[in-house]
């Protein structure tokens, strides 16, 4: 049976990990390869590297970061952040990413998903969907630009369209929950994972292993978390042990 995945996320800016990874014993917590090595050793099932650089120069560093991380990593690596073109996706894959995650560019031009999936295969085409509860009624709408812009588009319909266009995986972030440490938006997760047949990665709001368990029970194939691993005392191994203790299949 396919195991549920626990996926730490590293935010990288200008080639350095930001959001401070607090590993004990790391002499340089900002070094992406040191953080990646540590997460793999702890039992991470995959790694997501999100480039939050604000400038093209900073983005240039991302390719070097991907190359350096690939050289030490023997688990899958997904890279996202500011992806605009098929050529950029190809450069990231050549540098050592196994999957690329697209977001705003796909919302602006949905055919971008078809182009990435056709060129590199559905298994490498992740769409990151940022969703927020509507202010004026039930349901969720797609947001872009780090939640600053509400598009009005229905998040569930968008998830279906992404899968139909060839995306092999959805990275679903709740902007109502992100950073709140109050757990994932379980209703959103249930709605999206029952609407599509591709795997859904839950993101946004986790602070405790119980939150990850809830997300998996709500239909998530994988759980992504950043601050739970960066700031708290939970290691990836401790979280997976908590999942296994509740009867959830994880890779041991």
């Amino acid at each position: 049976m396919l195991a549920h995945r626990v996926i730490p996320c590293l935010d990288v800016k200008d080639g350095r990990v930001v959001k401070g990874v607090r590993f004990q014993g790391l002499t340089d917590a900002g070094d992406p390869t040191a953080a990646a090595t540590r997460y793999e050793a702890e039992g991470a099932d995959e790694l997501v590297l999100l480039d939050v650089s604000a400038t093209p120069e900073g983005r240039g560093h991302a390719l070097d970061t991907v190359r350096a991380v690939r050289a030490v990593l023997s688990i899958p690596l997904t890279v996202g952040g500011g992806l605009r073109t098929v050529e950029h996706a190809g450069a990231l894959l050549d540098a050592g990413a196994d999957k690329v995650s697209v977001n705003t560019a796909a919302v602006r031009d949905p055919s971008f998903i078809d182009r990435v999936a056709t060129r590199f295969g559905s298994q490498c085409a992740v769409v990151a969907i940022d969703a927020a509860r509507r202010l004026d009624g039930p349901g969720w709408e797609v947001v872009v630009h780090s939640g600053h812009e509400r598009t009005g588009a229905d998040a569930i319909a968008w998830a279906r369209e992404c899968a139909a266009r060839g995306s092999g995986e959805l990275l679903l972030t709740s902007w109502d929950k992100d950073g709140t440490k109050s757990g994932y938006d379980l209703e959103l997760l249930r709605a999206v994972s029952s609407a599509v047949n591709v795997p859904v990665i839950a993101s946004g709001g986790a602070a405790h292993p119980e939150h990850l368990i809830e997300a998996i029970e709500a239909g998530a194939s994988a759980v992504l978390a950043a601050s739970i691993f960066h700031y708290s005392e939970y290691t990836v191994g401790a979280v997976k042990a908590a999942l296994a203790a509740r009867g959830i299949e994880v890779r041991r």
Partner: protein
Amino acid sequence: MSDVVIVRTGVANLASVLAGLRRLGVTPDVTTDAAAVREARAVVLPGVGAFGAGMAALHEHGVAAALIERAAAGRPLLAVCLGLQLLAASSDEAPGVAGLAVHDGHVARFPDTVKVPQLGWNEVTPDAGCRLLEPGYAYFANSYRLTDAPLGWAAARSDHGGPFVAALERGPILACQFHPELSGPWGLALLDRWLAAAREA
């Protein structure tokens, strides 16, 4: 002539398999040259996006015939992900396109009762006849799979909407539906055993 060559099939992502082999002390050449594929001590056939495009790329450079020869002679070959599927006779992904037909298997899509693509770690259980494959968790990224092991091959199986072939082996020929290069220490150890078998062959 290089010791180990990787077949460049066009759109395949080679960085991870290259990195995995480098960690084991091997620096493979990447080639589309049929002679190099014929002569190398060991050959890696990586996964590419789709069955039809993969076969077209192999025929374009004459590599298909070299791979069929290697397999028939029992010479070291590692086929990864779509590589395993290309060894089959045919696939639902590209009806009418002939595979390398190293065995007579047919590749079919996973049923809709499970998430497709299969993305993630699944438990691999080898038959008693396996020499290279060991039990463990492997990383898969596929929408199609072989359901039945062909005659003459030892197989490892996993389950996703029913049993499927996770890997096949016959002497120094190893075909993995999963990605050994992305399967952590377990996967690297398998690559290392295959390299050792290739050196002895």
